[in-house]
């Protein structure tokens, strides 16, 4: 079993809908939680970063962390075709330095 699990999708939504993505993890030591967006044939690009439990909002993006359930989410409001990409969650903890553990990514398709 992988340390970080993510549904590979694809998740297909109509333009304007809310995209809901999530990851579950098994290591309770994780403290820092990130969401990266990866377009085809490009490198991952950091979207959101959250420390410990709680919510964080940035424009159309909202990240949620529930450490008690070992579950993190990313919501994209008013989705656009340009949001079509693979979304990767990543996490680590202080003692691990900058060693990120990634989920396998969820492919999202936003249809016009």
């Amino acid at each position: 079993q992988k340390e970080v699990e993510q549904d590979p999708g694809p998740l297909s939504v109509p333009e304007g809908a809310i995209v809901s993505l999530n990851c579950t993890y098994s290591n309770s030591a994780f403290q820092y939680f990130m969401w990266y967006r990866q377009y085809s044939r490009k490198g991952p690009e950091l979207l959101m970063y959250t420390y410990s439990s709680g919510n964080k909002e940035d424009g159309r993006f909202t990240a949620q962390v529930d450490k008690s359930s070992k579950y993190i989410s990313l919501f994209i409001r008013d989705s656009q075709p340009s949001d079509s990409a693979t979304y990767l969650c990543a996490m680590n903890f202080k003692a691990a330095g900058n060693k990120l553990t990634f989920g396998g990514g969820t492919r999202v398709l936003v249809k016009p």
Partner: protein
Amino acid sequence: DTAVSQTPKYLVTQMGNDKSIKCEQNLGHDTMYWYKQDSKKFLKIMFSYNNKELIINETVPNRFSPKSPDKAHLNLHINSLELGDSAVYFCASSQGIGTGDQPQHFGDGTRLSIL
């Protein structure tokens, strides 16, 4: 102006050959990384260098040897290439280590195909 650049973008070669991938960052970061992304999209860290010093060395065959001539450059040399080495290799950089909260910036990857 590219922040993290890798060369080459594509590499197709025969099994058993030796090849190198180069990475350069112009962000002024002091930590650089190599990741491998397999066909199922899992990104797994291989190595990390901070100011030219090896920090993270995951369970990687010793056919893979990283080298950091300075803190802006990190190269990856692979000896005796095998079919299982086919993947996309990403370079990344960040400022600092140890806190876990320094975002990593990725290059666009080198697609390695072994024939």
